[in-house]
């Protein structure tokens, strides 16, 4: 299709101020939140900003006629390159579909458009006594549509679960332009759980145009505990004992000494500078339960070697303790100009050994690595600190990442806790999945999107979707036999 005709038709669908096609305009749609070097930028041929599902359907049909790929984009805060248009095509930016359509107090649900900002959904439902539980660190900017695509997590997912546990139904535009609903208000699912398939599908199966999400009642009482330890080992031990005691904290986060060195001078949250590690533990529920559990956790921490346990119940105090954790990334600027935040998961029991390995890798690659992570569910976020102006530093970071990922997978972990695969980790998929596993996933993709039009070049290893399955299978068998974890 002629470019001018395409532009004209797009304008016909979303109006003149809803389409960008000039090269200068397209420049700013070539990235997302991913780290330079880990994900290559790529430029779309057009960007459309629709306001309705029908407009999206029309764009998809137009793209099909024009033979162009389609990439859905929310706030573009993703860390795995999910919103970067690897093969060009049309970016459908959902930022103008940002209304909360309905809050149902009785059913405890909210019907939202995909461009609603995560934190603002919680703020809007707070007066009704609810919040939206998944709370990724980017929650101030990221959108519900993006959360659905990446199946986002966050500190409070230890108790409340990740995004998939909070999505009841979706309105989606399929790659053939049809608009369909999955799931619904009631608890049961009749037939295939298409909502489940959509959540975490990284924009490759359909484009979410409405989401019916579960709202969680705000707890009566919240307590935050801060427990410093001499070293990571004892903090990990305390974590294991808390979980083993059958306690489910709302959040259980660990920060190592390097992180404390960055965070404490920046925010004065009161973390002891000489601690080897601190645990930040949040408990919520009824006032009595919270108090009782708090005492129990404090005792377990002290038995495991905590030098003290501080507690905060007032909002301002709690926020201060949390600030050091939530703003940890920002404070890293005090230690190095660049960081690469990783996201892997290991079984909780393997945490101490994994952290030891991370420390070795840090030494081997002469690369400072700070650890700040969701200890409660074994979701690591090693933060590699570097200066990308130094020649070869980005490559060194990527090499070290590979070492960490490989180790995590070897001990039975996963590639990503909450950031998704995208282009960033597609090359590692064969570490975890056999060729047959991948083929099963490809089967799902093919049944939704046989021509590979939605968000191409993501999730599956490079070349996988263009007929190299056979070669890949051979390769995967040869290389990975016996070492994959599943």
């Amino acid at each position: 299709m002629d470019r001018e005709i395409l532009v004209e038709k797009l304008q016909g669908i979303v109006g003149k101020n809803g389409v960008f096609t000039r090269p200068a305009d397209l420049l700013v749609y070539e990235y997302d939140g991913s780290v330079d070097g880990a994900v290559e930028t790529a430029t779309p041929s057009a960007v459309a900003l629709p306001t309705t599902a029908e407009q999206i359907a029309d764009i998809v049909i137009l793209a099909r006629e024009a033979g162009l790929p389609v990439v859905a984009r929310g706030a573009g805060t993703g860390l795995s390159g999910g919103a970067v248009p690897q093969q060009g095509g049309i970016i459908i930016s959902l930022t103008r579909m940002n209304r909360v359509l309905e809050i149902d107090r009785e059913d405890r649900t909210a019907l939202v458009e995909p461009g609603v900002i995560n934190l603002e959904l919680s703020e809007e439902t707070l007066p009704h006594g609810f919040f939206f539980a998944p709370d990724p660190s980017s929650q101030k900017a990221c959108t519900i549509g993006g959360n659905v695509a990446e199946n986002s997590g966050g500190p409070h997912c230890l108790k409340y679960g990740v995004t998939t546990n909070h999505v009841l139904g979706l309105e989606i535009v399929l790659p053939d332009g049809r608009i369909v609903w999955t799931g619904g208000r009631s608890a049961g699912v009749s037939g295939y759980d298409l909502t489940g398939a959509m959540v975490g599908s990284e924009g490759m199966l359909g484009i979410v145009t409405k989401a019916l999400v579960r709202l969680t009642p705000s707890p009566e009482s919240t307590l935050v505990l801060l427990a410093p330890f001499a070293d990571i080992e004892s903090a990990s031990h305390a974590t294991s004992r808390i979980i083993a005691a059958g306690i489910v904290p709302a959040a259980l986060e660990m920060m190592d000494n390097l992180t404390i060195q960055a965070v404490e001078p920046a925010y004065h949250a009161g973390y002891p500078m000489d601690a080897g590690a601190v645990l930040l533990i949040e408990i919520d529920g009824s006032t009595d339960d919270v108090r009782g559990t708090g005492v129990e956790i404090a005792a377990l921490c002290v038995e495991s070697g905590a030098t003290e346990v501080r507690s905060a119940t007032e909002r301002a105090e709690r926020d201060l303790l949390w600030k050091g954790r939530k703003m940890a990334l920002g404070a890293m600027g005090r230690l190095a100009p660049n960081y690469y935040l990783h996201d892997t998961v290991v079984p909780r029991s393997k945490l101490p050994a994994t952290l030891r390995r991370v420390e070795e890798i840090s030494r081997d690659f002469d690369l400072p690595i700070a650890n700040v992570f969701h200890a409660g569910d074994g979701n690591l976020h090693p933060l590699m600190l570097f200066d990308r102006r130094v020649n070869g530093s980005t490559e060194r970071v990527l090499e070290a990442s590979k070492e960490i990922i490989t180790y995590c997978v070897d001990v039975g972990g996963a590639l990503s806790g909450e950031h998704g695969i995208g282009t960033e980790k597609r090359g590692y998929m064969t570490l975890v999945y056999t060729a047959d596993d991948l083929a099963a996933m490809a089967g799902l993709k093919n049944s939704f999107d046989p021509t590979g039009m939605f968000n191409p070049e993501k999730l599956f290893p490079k070349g996988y979707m263009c007929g190299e399955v056979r070669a890949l299978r051979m390769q995967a068998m040869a290389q990975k036999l016996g070492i994959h974890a599943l």
Partner: protein
Amino acid sequence: MAVAIENDANILRLGGFSGPDIPEDDLLRACVHCGMCLSSCPTYRLTGQEMSSPRGRLWLMRAVADDRLELLDPLFDEQMYQCLNCRACEAVCPSGVHYGPLVEASRAQLEQHRPRSAQERALRRVGLDWLFADSGRLRLVVRMLRLAEKTGMTALARRTGLLKLLGMEDLQALTPEISRRPIVPGNERWLADPVSGERRHARLFNGCVMGTVFANTNRAAARVVARNGSDIDVPVEQQCCGALHVHAGMMEEARVLARRNIDAFERSGDDPIIVTAAGCGAALKEYGFLLKDDAAYAERAQRFSDRVRDFTEYLGERDLVPPSKPVPRTVTYQEPCHLVHAQRISRQPRDLMNAIPGLELVEMRESSLCCGSAGIYNIIREEMANELGDRKARHAMETPATEVITANPGCQMQVRASLRRNGSSARVRHIAELLDESYGGAKSKRAIIGRSEY
């Protein structure tokens, strides 16, 4: 990749940027495009488009630095000036990107390299260069405008955009609040109430709009400072702070003003310099950065900046003499961008209001989102400014407040105009007036006229 700065024969170059005031490469590359700034950006909130976000604009700057985008590409111009420079993005940036200086340097680049029509040039000369270059001229113009209002000649002034620039656009709504008598630097001084300990001194930064249109607000602020145990005067020879010039990329003009202010205030040692306009305060605190390459002034500029305190910040640093007269009203607070974001002052104004007996402070939604005033933005970008103003008015009107309190003249005018446009008669006042009222107001303390110490 980056084109290194060439430094031969005084020609500075970074890709498409050249000459003085090039955006600093290191500052530019501190942005890791994580997107945490998006939701705080007013223009992104209104448009939902990436180029209208801080991250997008930084990417465009980087594209110019990398020779991937022409400096004079219309999009670059459009975006550098669509930005309100409210700096909300800076306050939330995890990587600590200094966005303000970068957008200001980009504007300076455009100012240097962009061809302008003769008319445009003349308007800018008169508007920013001539008018604000000497505080006496401004006082004269404000007097003339008052006269013009009485003789019905405001239409002309309104057409030129001058009235709006001076915060006098809606004269009808403003009339009761316009100060009859501007403050002339050097001419007024307030003596401290004895509080405890030694006698303290403070110096008032008068400002252009604050010292003329809102002169009585400055007087209220001075009385409050005096009630809290410090002599305060208005040092002679001080000038406009230069914020408007910096925002418009007119760096050299701003530097001339900055040097004159540094000279004027140096005589008063290390006494705190108190500012009632958040926009001025932010600019004054950045003199150190503005003059960092001026061998004769760099150090003095930093010393000057270290002395600057917003009015609320100054009071927050000491035990407040409790205001005693009840003010039985409900108010809401509009945070000036250049207070909350550029100076990170948010708690102090609220603490001060909560110290006033009888006063109830009710928070509005998005109190720290720009109201659309942003220096001269509401003149050059009326449509977007109005949209933001309406949004602010709606949020204020959702509260039961009968007064909107703020701490910057630009916000004061913009919020007032927006409220009127949306049918609200709520008053908009500076926090200094509210405190002064609770301390007994104008009758409580008189200035000694003609007697500034310096």
